[in-house]
């Protein structure tokens, strides 16, 4: 059974600092997603990672995938308050429409 673990589950940091969120998954998968969720809002797709070594960047966020280690990272560079949100990783299960989700990382960035 595919399991997805994120850590940390909660992160409070100062503006301007760098940090990394980790996403481990237990069995082989073809696709990994990162989503952002603000309180009371929709899940917003950030990145889709399709292959080993894939790296994608958008602004201060960069996601990477190591399929051999079954590990994805979401790196935040020089954090700003607007990035405060909960970040989820999700991995395609046996059926590619079934996403298996991590528990989420609640990120609070203090001005």
């Amino acid at each position: 059974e595919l399991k997805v673990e994120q850590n940390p589950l909660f992160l409070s940091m100062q503006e301007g600092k760098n940090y990394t969120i980790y996403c481990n998954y237990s069995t082989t998968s073809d696709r990994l997603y990162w989503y952002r969720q603000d309180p009371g809002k929709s899940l917003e797709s950030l990145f889709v990672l399709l292959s080993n070594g894939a790296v994608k960047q958008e602004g201060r966020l960069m996601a990477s995938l190591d399929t051999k280690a079954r590990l994805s990272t979401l790196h935040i560079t020089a954090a700003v308050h607007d990035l405060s949100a909960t970040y989820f990783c999700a991995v395609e299960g046996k059926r590619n429409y079934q996403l298996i989700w991590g528990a989420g990382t609640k990120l609070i960035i203090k001005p």
Partner: protein
Amino acid sequence: GAGVSQTPSNKVTEKGKYVELRCDPISGHTALYWYRQSLGQGPEFLIYFQGTGAADDSGLPNDRFFAVRPEGSVSTLKIQRTERGDSAVYLCASSLFLDTEAFFGQGTRLTVV
């Protein structure tokens, strides 16, 4: 509309009652998904529709849960004899086709008292 719309945004119901949750997907999207998100957890898959048919309902927790999409657009998730453990945010998502990006609605927060 521009995005996936879910109604109501909040629903409080008494234990044992019947509820319906509605999802309006993005126009033209053939695939529709329901997820359930409990507090402090990631979403859990419930059911997937391709067109009008439920292609996979293996995530529905028991036979109190049922979903329909009669015309291949709007979907309704129906919960009979609600229990306190059903309290969660129910999320709907749609995508143009199966393997394309899914867009999520804001969810319906269901509270069973």
